[in-house]
């Protein structure tokens, strides 16, 4: 610690806006989740009868609407962005700096894999 922060102060950081964008993304995705998750809850519990909602019903009925399919994809993306950026924060706080790059790399790879998988399912699942 005192090696890095000498009497003359810490090294001047290289100008970057990444953490600013992350800060905004976490907050915007939380607002999106507030709307989308409540809408999802209302739809699954009040608009449609929960007893009817099997996986087949979701495929045939709900996802036959492009709008509802897009809303579900939006919620999935908001969850991914919010959850993984939250995990990024946890790793930055608690993983020692020598291991942080590896840990963050694994996290980003996992996020990308889930993004691709989720998007592929939403785009390609056949209706009826």
């Amino acid at each position, binding site marked *: 610690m005192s090696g890095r922060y000498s009497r003359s102060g810490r090294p001047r950081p290289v100008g970057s806006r990444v*953490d600013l964008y992350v800060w905004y993304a976490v907050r915007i995705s939380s607002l999106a989740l507030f709307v989308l998750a409540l809408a999802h809850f209302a739809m699954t519990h009040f608009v449609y009868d929960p007893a009817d909602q099997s996986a087949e019903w979701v495929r045939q009925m709900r996802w036959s609407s492009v709008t509802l399919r897009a809303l579900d994809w939006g919620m999935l993306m908001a969850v991914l962005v919010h959850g993984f950026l939250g995990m990024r924060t946890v790793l930055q706080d608690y993983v020692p700096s020598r291991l942080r790059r590896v840990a963050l790399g694994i996290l980003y790879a996992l996020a990308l894999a889930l993004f691709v998988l989720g998007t592929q399912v939403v785009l390609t699942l056949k209706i009826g």
Partner: protein
Amino acid sequence: MSSVELKIQRFDPERDAAPHWVNYTVPVEPMDRVLDVLTRAKELFDGSITFRRSCAHGVCGSDALMINGRNRLACKVRVEQLGKSISVAPLPGLPVIKDLVVDMDAFFGKYRSVLPFLVAEEPAGEGERHQTQEQRDRYDDTTKCILCAACTSSCPSFWAQPDYVGPAAIVNAHRFIFDSRDEAADDRLEILADEDGVWRCRTTFNCVDACPRGINITKAILEVSSAIGSRR
């Protein structure tokens, strides 16, 4: 004269492998402060009890300690506010040099990193650089900082990542960023824009709770964050 049970976390790097607690029964007057009790314990029981003190009136910030589990100035807390049992430990998260004295080098290094001085290239003109009352009010709260480190050493983000520049440095950057006479706000915002700058604040408000000067530190940090966001 009544007495209190004073428990001091002691550590002598030449003798001890780890810090340990030592108890003293210290006679006290009703209006005594913790600093008076420490001084009396040093006089009566053990002259090697080590702690910092200077002005003893809440201005210099030398005697910030963890008292009954909270960071405070020993000269601003009266014994009657704490009861019959008082525990005193060094500020958490900073390396202990001896007993209650911590190494503040890294703390002041971070403070220096935010350019905590007025940068104004133009000559002052007729003696002074003027500003309106509104311009002065913009950063009035953060001028109160006495660099005692009570805030930074109470911050869980700092405990987890000692590279974090910390609330005290951000407060002192705020003091100049929003000063209408200063010309280096962009430099300070750039310095604070990385992951060990303002973005490591998790708004836990420990700093606000710890500040002996009552500075709304979290608000100041968020104002600096907003300034970074609105910067071109």
